């Protein structure tokens, strides 16, 4: 036994950690849909991070001699109505969409999970108050709030993030609460309390990790819907303002020239679809993978 302590402790630790990480990533790649989603997401992230290096032109450089051009070697997707390179604008546009998706999901997830945990764990009157607030927030129509915000503080990216967070946390809160209610009664939570764990510790160390699976799925889907909302808002001019490139904005302008250069609106539309689809695929895949039964199968196949 001492032999193991001396020789193998370190080795086993790293092996185990590696194994844990590999198994989830491997499972994601084994699952066809999520594999596709993951690859698209990685490409999008790559695009967003390295856009200055990938874009062939400055996205804001206008050239009024080359307006609404069809694809050429110099402009692979053609140019827009003021002669900017469409490909570059689409590459830069990924920054807006992804940051809205990820940031707003982080905020809404943070608020929702925290409130859901408290509601589910504390129960009673606190639960009732939090859940009634949740119900109230669910009654707010998203687009109207967006319009109000735009009127109040002017259109911009911040609005979108606020609106998505303010409306999106309810889903997280309800799912978290449901999970917590289910897990709270299990003996290991009682055992944790009997070991002297504090309420805070029980919530974050015991309840949260055990209800993580559906939350991860929700987060992934929520990124997709945030991207959609941003595109929609941009279409109506409520999101980030020109000249910052954005897919929704490009879609809106391209729409006016649909008959002359269809690619102008098709390309950003396709990007929006791809991005949303990718996050939805990933969400679906994660749901399957985080399901204990499916996980068991993967382990057995190994």
């Amino acid at each position, binding site marked *: 036994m001492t032999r*193991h*302590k001396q020789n193998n402790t370190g080795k086993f630790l790293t092996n185990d950690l590696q194994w844990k990480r590999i198994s989830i990533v491997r499972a994601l790649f084994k699952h066809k849909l999520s594999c596709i989603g993951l690859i698209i997401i990685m490409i999008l992230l790559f695009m967003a991070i390295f856009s200055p290096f990938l874009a062939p032109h400055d996205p804001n450089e206008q050239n009024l001699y080359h307006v609404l051009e069809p694809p050429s070697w110099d402009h692979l997707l053609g140019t827009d109505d003021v002669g900017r390179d469409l490909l570059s604008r689409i590459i830069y546009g990924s920054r807006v969409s992804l940051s809205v998706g990820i940031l707003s999901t982080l905020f809404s997830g943070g608020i929702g999970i925290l409130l859901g945990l408290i509601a589910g764990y504390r129960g009673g009157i606190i639960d009732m108050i939090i859940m009634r607030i949740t119900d109230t927030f669910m009654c707010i129509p998203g687009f109207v709030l967006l319009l109000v915000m735009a009127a109040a503080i002017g259109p911009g990216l911040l609005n979108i993030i606020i609106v998505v967070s303010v409306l999106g946390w309810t889903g997280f809160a309800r799912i978290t609460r449901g999970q917590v209610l289910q897990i709270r009664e299990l*003996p290991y939570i009682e*055992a944790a*309390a009997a070991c*002297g764990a504090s309420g805070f510790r029980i919530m974050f160390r015991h309840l949260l990790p055990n209800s993580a699976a559906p939350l991860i799925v929700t987060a992934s889907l929520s990124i997709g819907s945030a991207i959609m909302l941003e595109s929609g808002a941009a279409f109506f001019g409520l999101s980030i303002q020109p000249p910052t490139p954005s897919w929704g904005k490009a879609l809106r302008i391209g729409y006016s020239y649909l008959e002359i250069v269809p690619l102008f609106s098709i390309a950003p539309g396709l990007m929006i679809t791809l991005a949303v689809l990718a996050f939805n695929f990933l969400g679906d895949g994660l749901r399957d993978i985080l399901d204990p039964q499916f996980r068991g199968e993967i382990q057995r196949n190994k």
Partner: protein
Amino acid sequence: MLLNVKHLSTHFISSKGVLKAVDDISFSINKGEILALVGESGSGKSVTALSLLRLIPNPPGKITGGEIVFENRDLLKLNPEDMRQVRGNRIAMIFQEPMTSLHPILSIEEQVMEPLIHHKGIQRTKALNACYQLLEKVHISDPPIRGKSYPHMLSGGMKQRSMIAMALSCNPSLIIADEPTTALDVTIQAQLLELLKDLTNEMGTSMLLITHDLGIVARYAHIVHVMYAGKIVEKASIETLYSYPRHPYTMALMASIPRIDQDCRKKLTPVQGNPPDLFNIPKGCAFHPRCPKKQEKCMEETPKLIPLANNHETACWIYE
């Protein structure tokens, strides 16, 4: 005296009325002593255990009265923060279902280490070493390997061993074992109880053993309290209880145990009748509807514990 429980009552309030799960019980445990609490399902054993740790879900449950003096402090008067320092640290609990009492997505060592880091403020690396020693102590082979496993990878016996390791980790002065071996097979039961007995002996820990298995009681406990419908009806050392059971309920229980020298064609002798509905406890002595020796008085007045010889006490009117 390590633990002195005086007139403890725990009631559950529901729309059907008040359920007196534990009704005015008193008992005490000395250092190093193993006290067994026996009784049928629903007699209030587990509620007693949870009351000691103040883990009764409230609402609907509530400790309505009494005192729990543990290491010279009344646990019922402690503030929640101090109470938390008692749980797991001074009083540890072993639950009846090792399968579900372990956190499913933390490794065993992580869980055994947790109380050490949490209560004793020991560093992670040191705690890990202590954890391996504990696992070795409860006879888990190759702690560095087994410690990395998750609960679903271990057998029931191993899980219960890990639970014992966890309970012992902070060197508590009292361990509450709530039917620690119910979910395990007989050989593992014996091994585990032997282990618990040795370890508690070695560390001078007292134990409150909750069980309905009179065989376990006879072998491992020093003192037995028999519970019925939320009350303690008989207190005795095991030698006395097994040779001279005095309460009719205890007698009926003893008679119901199949004997190895008994003619196997003979039917078992059950305790007549059903356990009482706790919302509707019979007036007088709760056992009277099932009692073969009942008198007029039993239906009217609730008997108190009456002292007999050899620290033996029983709550029955026939010894009045």
